């Protein structure tokens, strides 16, 4: 994606730093614990489809 084509260029250094910070923002949420309501939602959906007609396919 930003494979060091011109690492010594200060402008591509800015670009690399932008990507670094973008990853940091993304990873911060990525590492957060999943809220219960989301895992519970999946449990409910699973139960509902098990009670009903079961899995499609």
């Amino acid at each position, binding site marked *: *994606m*930003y494979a060091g*084509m*011109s690492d010594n*260029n*200060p*402008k*591509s*250094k*800015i*670009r690399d*730093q*932008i*990507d670094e*910070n*973008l*990853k*940091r*923002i*993304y*990873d911060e*949420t*990525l*590492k*957060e614990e*999943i*809220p219960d*309501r*989301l*895992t519970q*939602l*999946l449990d409910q*959906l*699973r139960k509902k*489809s098990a009670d009903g007609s079961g*899995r*499609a*396919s």
Partner: protein
Amino acid sequence: MAQNLDTADTTQNTAPHPRDQLVGYLPSLRAFAMSLTRNRSTADDLVQDTIVKAWSNIDKFNVGTNLQAWLFTILRNTYYSSLRRTRREVADPEGIHAQGLFVRPDHDGRLAYGDFQRAFDQLSPEHREVLTLVGASGFSCEEAAVTMGVAVGTVKSRASRARKRLSSLMGLAEGEDAFPGVDHASMAVMGRSGMQAA
């Protein structure tokens, strides 16, 4: 699906049903949702809607294709259609980035993270989306294009404009050549769609 013929009785050897894979995508769905909404509870609402839609439409998913891209597409389409309904509602970045004044890059020239976050918050959702997809999620431009439902060239030009905007918000660069890696030809061609995102 096709593998079921050979491995019908050894479920360990077949890929889990897509519905059973959803839980594994919750972290990346939340991260992507946060990049669009910049608000944790709105992001989780969005992930919740996405999961419900994905669950009930799972038969529309093409097994063997990129499940993450499929989920991200549902998420961003859900987001943009709700955004159209409430376009005037201003995102609340939870005040997390409101603290502190703008600080110049420190002595080694690195961007201060707080400044970066504030600048990122000020981008349009479309710009945050493209930068997150190609700059952070690990998607290729092609995968981002599929997710966003646009041409690869549009992804590249929009990403380039978003980077420029981000740089200028941080007072780092304003010139045409801020980022020599970008494809200027496609930028010229795709300028119009870039404008939509601006």
